[in-house]
């Protein structure tokens, strides 16, 4: 199938000018009705496959990005990045691989309570966001990764996460508590914290 070169020009101009990755729908509204944007995007992806910048897809969003193998030459462009704590990196990995995942499940997998500044750093970075509430008592919020996360790590979908197939096959994606009695599960910590708080309040009252 040959793709109208004029439409290709338009799509690449739109993507080139955009500050943020664009959805197919955001591109569609600028083009004549009935334009097959997806087909054009696929053609453009092929066209730029071997160039210095390539057309990348993250979720439903498309953007031009420099080719990953040219990082050496672009060293000077490197932006300063906040060093993430190990806790934050692990938490991000858990959200990415186990999503949708509740905070309690994250704590279960890590074996420690989530400290301040873990999920909020990831949310501030725009990598994780709240997902649906789990339909269990307490309706806990789940956390999922965003399309910015995919864009940042150069992934088309979360199925492209490194090692995801292996992890799935190994049964280690089970996010249930391994066993309720293992210490270090969050419930214990919460109870402790609560007790400490209650005690503090009680001593204030007397």
């Amino acid at each position: 199938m040959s793709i109208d070169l004029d439409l290709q020009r338009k799509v690449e101009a739109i993507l080139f000018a955009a500050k943020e990755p664009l959805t197919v729908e955001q591109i569609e509204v600028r083009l004549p009705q009935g334009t097959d944007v997806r087909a054009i995007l696929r053609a453009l992806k092929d066209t730029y496959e071997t160039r210095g910048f390539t057309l990348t897809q993250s979720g439903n969003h498309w953007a031009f990005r420099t080719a990953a193998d040219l990082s050496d030459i672009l060293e000077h462009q490197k932006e300063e990045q906040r060093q993430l704590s190990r806790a934050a990196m692990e938490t991000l990995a858990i959200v990415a691989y186990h999503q949708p995942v509740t905070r309690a499940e994250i704590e279960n997998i890590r074996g420690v309570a989530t400290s301040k500044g873990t999920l909020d750093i990831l949310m501030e970075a725009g990598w994780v966001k709240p997902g649906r509430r789990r339909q269990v008592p307490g309706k806990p919020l789940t956390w999922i990764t965003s399309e910015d996360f995919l864009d940042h790590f150069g992934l088309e979908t979360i199925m492209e996460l490194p090692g995801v197939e292996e992890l799935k096959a190994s049964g280690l994606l089970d996010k249930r508590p391994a066993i309720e009695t293992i210490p270090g599960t969050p419930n214990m910590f919460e109870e402790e914290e609560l007790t400490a708080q209650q005690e503090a309040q009680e001593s204030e009252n007397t």
Partner: protein
Amino acid sequence: MTDNFEEDNWQDSKDKQESLLLNLDGFEGPIDVLLNLARDQKVDLVKISILELVNQYLGFIEQAKKIKLELAADYLLMAAWLAYLKSRLLLPKEENNQDEPSGEEIAEALAFQLRRLEKIQETAELLFARPQLGQEVFARGMPEGISSSTDAQYEANLYDIILAYGDIQQRAEHSSYEIKPFNLMSMDEAAKRLSTMLGTLPKSGRNTVWATLEQFLPENLIDALMSRSAMASMFTAGLEMAKQGKLEIRQDGNFNPIYLRGKTE
């Protein structure tokens, strides 16, 4: 035989434990320490000896106590739990109790927990080894920007909104803590004042002269709330002392003055 093997291994790992102890701050809790000890067994985590691991952890805690290192409660809690697990694993098997998992089942669950955490730590490294935007991969440096009817004119993201809401909530919490303590006269204070003042009143036989309740109140009470509370506390203290036989109360009619007089036994 097996026990000896484990003992030896435990001795070998003592040096390792000491270096672990020095780095305790770098650990994310007891599970993390366990995982590190497990890695030192240098076998596939699937084949790990939980019993040996338990010994190593208990040894690790012993060492910490010996050099008087302050251990967080969760490390000690884990030690207690592992000691329990060890006894379950070593003791002859009890009658099959459906309600309680067997020692082996608990050990397997712990091994699973460790494998899962190890895998996540590995994949976190794999993830961050990928080319990242702004580090190895770059967006266009000078985007002209496009306008769109669907794009918002205002910059705001979910995080901003949640933070704003959090601020509002915290303001509300703050203001609820700014309630000042009321200035009130306590019962104790009133009782003390009453008995002191009764002692200074002129005597008439076994009793003092009658005095109105108002006369016992502190002078110069301007604050209305304080006046009311002083009146109430004095009256209640008076009732209590009357009950104890220390004074008598008299009121000649509704809304008439209340008189008090001291009583000596």
